[in-house]
């Protein structure tokens, strides 16, 4: 069966006085029906811009300059603004990072919840308000009938994120994109929200694309994970496979560098050397080359393309792809110290 969403060679760029930032550079991936895809990367890796590009929400000076976003076979990048509007909120919904700023402060929560219902489902205002009460109940907000009359500032951060989730699910979308949905929240509230997302996904069967910088957040939740670095997908595999058998030096570095809560201290941490690259001044070859301990001679000059590698955990189902010239595994001794870039 064809995937629900297929992104092909997506390119999104930001023009500035100092040059062009290739925020998303030739990115291809897909999401199946009912699947949860995790996208992991640091700030500037292009993960959020990818999400924005799917819904064509990239704002000036950003621009999608190439590629295809095929949703159920239709290329979203070719739709006119009116057709696109019917996709947003109805077919694909989005949850944003900061629940404190993502709701309109001067409209009641009920009003904001009912907007997509009125727009997409053809409900009247009253019907939509009634439906909103149910939505609030669904995301676990007590006293929902009263709460829809409140304004966002009456809600705590965690509660607002629940409202955002309710709003995203209002029209039963086929895909929900959650952009760092828990980054702004405390740990215990984060757990509440992640649990809620998992529960709702199980109930509605919607596909989820969850974007985060914390590997832990997606480990328990995602079926598959894309790791992004400097605008490229550098590794993609099933969740189990990725954590058990990471093959890209960057992924390996990340896993080695973060201390684990459930393990006693083993000694010093093993950091990734250097800093994330300047997106205005990327190297010709692999963007990770200057920080890489396993760099291949070709990495300096040739941008590695995604290639399939054998997967260890469940060979038949999942596919494991990496964009790396080297053939290394976790635990291999480094070929060299990270390169000094003066």
């Amino acid at each position, binding site marked *: 069966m064809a995937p629900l969403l297929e992104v092909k060679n997506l390119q999104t760029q930001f023009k500035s006085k100092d040059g062009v930032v290739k925020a998303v550079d030739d990115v291809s991936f897909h999401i199946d029906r009912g699947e949860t895809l995790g996208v992991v990367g640091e700030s500037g890796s292009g993960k959020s811009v990818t999400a924005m590009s799917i819904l064509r*929400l990239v704002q000036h000076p950003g621009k999608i300059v190439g590629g295809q976003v095929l949703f159920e076979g239709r290329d979203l990048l070719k739709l006119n603004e009116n057709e696109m509007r019917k996709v947003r909120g109805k077919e694909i919904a989005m949850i944003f990072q*900061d629940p404190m700023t993502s709701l*309109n402060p*001067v409209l009641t929560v009920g009003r904001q919840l009912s*907007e997509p219902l009125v727009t997409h489902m053809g409900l009247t205002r009253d019907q939509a308000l009634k439906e909103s009460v149910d939505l609030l109940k669904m995301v676990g907000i007590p006293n929902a009938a009263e709460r829809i009359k409140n304004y966002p500032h009456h809600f705590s951060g965690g509660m607002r994120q629940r409202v955002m989730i309710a709003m995203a699910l209002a029209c039963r979308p086929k895909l929900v994109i959650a952009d760092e949905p828990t980054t702004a929240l405390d740990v215990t509230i984060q757990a509440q929200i992640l649990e809620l997302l998992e529960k709702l996904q199980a109930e509605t069967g919607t596909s989820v694309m969850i974007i985060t910088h914390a590997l832990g957040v997606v480990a328990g939740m995602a079926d598959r994970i894309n790791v992004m670095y400097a605008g490229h997908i550098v590794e993609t595999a099933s969740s189990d496979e990725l954590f058990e058998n990471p093959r890209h030096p960057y992924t390996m570095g990340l896993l080695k560098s973060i201390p684990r809560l459930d393990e006693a201290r083993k000694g010093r941490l093993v950091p990734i050397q250097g800093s994330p690259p300047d997106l205005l001044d990327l190297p010709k070859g692999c963007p990770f080359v200057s920080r890489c301990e396993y760099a291949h001679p070709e990495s300096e000059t040739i941008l590695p393309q995604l290639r399939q590698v054998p997967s260890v955990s469940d060979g038949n189902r999942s596919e494991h792809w990496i964009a790396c010239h080297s053939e290394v595994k976790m635990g291999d001794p480094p070929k060299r110290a990270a390169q000094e870039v003066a």
Partner: protein
Amino acid sequence: MRRFIIRRLLQSLLLVWAIMSLTFLLVNIAPGGPEVVLTQNPKLTREQVEAIRVSYGLDKPLYEQYVTWMSRIAVFDFGRSYTNPRPASQLVVERISATAQLGLASYLIGMLGIPLGIYAARRRGKLGDNVVRVITVIGSCMPVWWISLMVIIILANTVKWFPQGEGTGGIGPWFLHLMIPAALLSTGVLISFTRFVRAETLEVLSQDYVRTAVAKGLPGKEVNRWHVFRNSLIPVVTLLGYLLPALVSGAIITEQIFQWPGMGRLFFQAASSRDMPVLLCILYIGTILTVIGTLLADIGYGLVDPRVRYD
């Protein structure tokens, strides 16, 4: 909310009191004191001056004068005008209507800045926006009297006519005599509105919740109406109040230039003849108007913005 209004009312009263006290002090410690007018008048003999001083209570110690003065202005009694046998307050009250007409008209014209600001913000960086910006920059450098003078020159040298006074003979002339000064007086307000609304709208356009609204698939009109303008126009309420003082000050100049028979012109005349009771009476009214303007602005803001909480 009630607590807030009570608090702001008390603060406003305090403010009026403070400003009037300060004025009293300035007038009395200034070289020559309030009787400067009298002593500078060569026609008056020393005895006459002394008699007037006594009749106005200027011979008493300062604190006593202050108490008398305060208790009198509390009941809106500024004493007789120096140049007119009638009470100053009466002279001033007669002029309020004319000034109110002018002020209201220019306010209405000035509010055209709101759509202008929205227009500029929506066409940010494009031709329309740039035209608006150039106009606001140039307008900021042309004070009311300057631009009035230019308009008068143009009118006088082309149609050989420009409005002077109230205009008699029906609604048409009245309208013409009112609208030209009002339009000129409104330039400052218009520019303030335009700049403010443009800035606010641009600010709101970059907010996360606008992105949320777009991501929900709302039609552009809905997004603009409920998520952009609704938010960007809320702070405009405060501007409505804060611009009042500028209008009051501008009225002195405009009314003088066009001989509009309002408070501003009276103030000018009183200043020329050093008629202190009239001057202080108008200053008092001006102060109260300004204070009320800011008060209304604050309360109005609280009414339209659900985020503001008073406790």
